[in-house]
């Protein structure tokens, strides 16, 4: 569904992505992990052409998003929902207006119709009573959930999550994880999650890719990932106190 073909990107003179190749399949939750600055978010931004590769190309199905322009790019972007790390809510709009913004600006739906859809999506993220609140009144977790409601308001095929649990307490993080899982199961969306929270990655991912120094060093299922012999992966697992699959399962259940 999404394919990176030898994509390279330099930012500020540093190679962030170095001829990376990987493919994300339909209806899976593909998690990209790696240390800070490894190129995870840069990779995500290439999928919606917020960044353009220096070389290589990014394909969405049969469409080449890295070369698309104008209406063609809009059409491709309309297939996506994007939850930004900071949620990126417009500060002067209420929660309801933020979530309904894509519908208000891009469709001819009536206000009542939009409001109804907004309330439905807010209910899905357990924020049914936040419709009239301002973003400044919300906690970090609530903002992310509003951002998620906005990302799914147009019922996209693919949802991109940039660090959905960063800065959140463990309980709220697991709530977000469950929401991501539910969206894949209930709506059948393809999800791409960028995170350095391995507990979250192992819980929600159908496949996990590890980015290191601009290269993909591992792509595997969570079960294979925790057993990986790759030194970089092992170091990353051990840094988060996950040494074997058994221990991870124990830590998840305890």
């Amino acid at each position, binding site marked *: 569904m999404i394919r990176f073909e030898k994509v390279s990107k330099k930012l500020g003179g540093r190679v962030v992505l170095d001829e990376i190749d990987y493919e994300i399949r339909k209806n899976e939750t593909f998690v990209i992990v790696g240390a800070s600055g490894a190129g995870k978010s840069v990779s995500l*931004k290439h999928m*919606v052409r*917020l960044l353009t590769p220096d070389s290589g190309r990014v394909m969405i199905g049969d469409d080449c998003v890295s070369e698309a322009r104008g209406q063609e*790019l*809009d059409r491709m*972007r*309309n297939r*996506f929902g*994007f939850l*930004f*790390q*900071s949620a*990126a*809510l*417009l*500060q002067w709009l209420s929660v309801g207006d933020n979530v309904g*913004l*894509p519908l*208000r*600006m*891009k469709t001819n739906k009536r206000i009542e119709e939009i409001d109804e859809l907004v309330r439905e999506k807010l209910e899905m993220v357990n924020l049914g009573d936040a419709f009239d609140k301002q973003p400044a009144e919300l906690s970090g977790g609530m903002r992310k959930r509003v951002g998620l409601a906005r990302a799914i308001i147009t019922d996209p095929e693919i949802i991109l999550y940039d660090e959905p649990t960063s800065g959140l307490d463990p309980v709220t993080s697991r709530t977000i994880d469950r929401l991501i899982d539910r969206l894949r199961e209930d709506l059948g969306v393809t999800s791409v999650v960028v995170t350095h929270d391995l507990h979250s990655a192992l819980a929600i991912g159908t496949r996990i890719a590890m980015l290191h120094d601009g290269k993909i060093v591992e792509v595997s299922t969570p079960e294979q990932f925790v057993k990986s012999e790759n030194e970089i992966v092992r170091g990353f697992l051990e840094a988060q106190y996950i040494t074997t699959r058994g221990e991870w399962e124990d830590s998840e259940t305890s």
Partner: protein
Amino acid sequence: MVCRNTGTAMLMLLEAFRDIPFMVSPKHRHDVLHQQFLTAIKSLGVITVVGLFTGMILALQTGLELRRYGQEVYIGSAVTVVMLREMGPFMTGLIIAASVGSAIAAQIGTMTVSEEISALEVMSIPPARYLVTPRLVAMITMMPLVTVYTNIIGVVGGAIVGQTQLGVSMTAYMDNATQFAANKDLYVGLLKSVLFGIIIATVACHQGFSAKQGAVGVGLATRRTVVVSFLIILTVGYMVTRLFYQ
């Protein structure tokens, strides 16, 4: 660097002009009205004080000189003509650049560094149409109105000084003013005000979109908006005057 910035600012301005027809739709009408309110109504307090004192200073300085020749009655025309041609649009431009322009740059700059602009792009909502065009339309429509208000307040300020300090009656002041001020003075001043509005909106939005590196970047964008707007307003003001008064 300057050429590249000018180029991207011009492209943004062209895109914003192209999107003006969209502003009549209910989706954008509220945004335009809100920006018009911020540009005009919210600035009236400071405009009143600056306009009043500009007129008073002009009247006092010219009046004291003219008094040496017994011609102080001519402060009516001096103040009115100078306000209409130069000081009205110029002072309004400076105030709007410093208050509204800096606020626009800070708002769009904050949106840029907090990924809100990226969010708009991903939602296929053109940032220029959503953010620049309503501000541009507000500037183009409100700057002339605010300038007319500044002119009136300035002329009234001059009249107050004439009456209280130079012994020029209100009637004599107004007679003199209407005798020498021409329609051309008003039109040229209003043309300047429209150009200044376009300059402020373009510089402020462009600086906002160019903001980088968090709060420091937003601060720099705000500062550059005021400085660059002032410089362009001064230059364009002179060029328009040169064009119409040779």
